[in-house]
């Protein structure tokens, strides 16, 4: 079940919004094939997240929820604690770099609920010039190292993270090697 992107983009207030951006479906896009469970979840999600302007879409077989990045921790908290969703399992947290095309990073959360066997993708978009968003370590502790890694590689700052030191890069490393803009064949010695 895919919502129209035009309708969605007119609703949201400009800076910190859920943005589908370049992922509007086009002819080249893989077709959506949501399972009945996924359909039910995409209907349910707006009810759960009434307080926030989120945009529910679908990508192949995943329910995708675009949420304003500044409230991502609160939204994540609701998704975890609400009985109807209870996404207690954070499968993956990662950053996708759209700096060149849209000057933004997508922070992607893959969630799973063991009770309902729901799965969904939560996405927040942060501007590349000032990539900041609240941490979700308060919701899932398992976000800890993911956020540190993403901070290392993409320079995305997770506000309120208890311990945002470098994780996998050497101490004092300059630059963000995960970004598309990082030169690939320019070696440095440590």
């Amino acid at each position, binding site marked *: 079940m895919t919502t129209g992107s035009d309708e969605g983009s007119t609703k949201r207030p400009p800076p910190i919004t859920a943005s589908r951006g370049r992922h509007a479906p086009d002819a080249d896009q893989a077709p959506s094939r949501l399972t009945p469970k996924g359909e039910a979840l995409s209907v349910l999600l707006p009810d759960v997240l009434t307080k926030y302007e989120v945009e529910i879409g679908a990508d192949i077989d995943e329910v995708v929820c675009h949420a304003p990045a500044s409230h991502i921790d609160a939204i994540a908290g609701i998704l975890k604690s609400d009985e109807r969703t209870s996404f207690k399992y954070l499968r993956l947290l*990662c950053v996708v770099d759209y700096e060149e095309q849209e000057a933004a990073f997508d922070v992607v959360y893959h969630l799973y609920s063991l009770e309902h066997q729901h799965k969904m993708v939560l996405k927040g978009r942060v501007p590349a010039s000032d990539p900041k968003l609240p941490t979700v370590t308060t919701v899932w*502790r398992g976000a800890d190292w993911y956020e540190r890694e993403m901070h290392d590689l993409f320079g995305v700052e997770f506000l309120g993270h208890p311990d945002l030191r470098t994780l996998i890069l050497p101490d004092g490393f300059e630059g963000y090697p995960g970004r598309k803009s990082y030169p690939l064949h320019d070696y440095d010695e440590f």
Partner: protein
Amino acid sequence: MTESGITTNVIDKGRGMADMLINMGPQHPATHGVFRMELALDSEMIVDVTPHIGYLHRGSEKLFENEIYSQIITLFDRLDYISNFNNELGLVMAVEKLMDLEVPDRAEYIRVILCELNRIASHLVFIGTFALDMGALTPSLYNFRDREKILALFEATSGARMMHNFFRVGGIKQDVIADFPARVTTLLGELEAGIDEADKMLSLGEVFVERTRGIGVIDGDVALDWGLSGATLRASGVPYDVRIEEPYSVYDRFDFGVPVGSAGDCWDRYYLRVLEARESIKIIRQALQQMEPGPVQAKVRAIARPPKGEVYVHAENPRGDFGVYLVSEGAESPYRLKVRPPSFCNLMALRDLLIGHYIADSVVILGSLDIVLGEVDR
């Protein structure tokens, strides 16, 4: 405050003062590679832990973005270098799902057989090294002997003992050798005996039980919160196995059990793997029966070019839930390919597990998480 931040936590909930900081790894025999942890000790008791990873960071995920898919398979081999087939499966499934590709049945069965054999091999390594961490030398050699038989079969099948590069988008590289079913059947008999041997040698031994029972206990809810997976999560009593919850490949055609523990300690984590290895043997037997001759490769372009879109595919690796998040822009290489490394998530909970235990337990607990640094650091 030191750079590691340890001194801030020295007085930790009345657990006592740290009177020694000890640096375990990256060159320590029991850290399974190049893992490092700073232990703050109160004599022999661990007061605080700071894990350090990244010594094996190759920037794999950045590399993926600049290679075509068939090249990425070779990189996936090197993530979790103990269970290579399972990694390859994760990648090719992601691409196939994005392309909406139908894989021939025979290829799926061969994939399952190889993956399950790889799971047994991985668990054998785990049991061996776990015992080695506790000072028992012999089980590791017995188990490596059995693993070597599996690797010999892999070599006959794919040409390489470990870095196979055998799975392809839409199938596998080539059909298996003619006597593959016969060799697998013989091998399974030997493996059964080998697993029983390891079980007899360790599981109920007095010293082994003393060292593992009640050590590194993690509660089911907390384990879920940390995002643990695989046997580490199931040992805490959470029944979650990707092969059942979201069946991939042809796993929905087999009847097999998933052992679930209750104590959430090192002994449970160990024993589940013994039982899992036995269940894998059952799966392989069924797969051999159901397998029929046929093509092993779907019709795909030589250079796969999946359409625009995003998929998240995951598979039950020996170490846990191995996820592949693939963002494609319709090009020959992915726009973004992020791996969910199960070892990485399991390792996150280390601090919780270690505090309050002895130094000697730290190696046992670390061993029971069964990490592979190639995957943790990527």
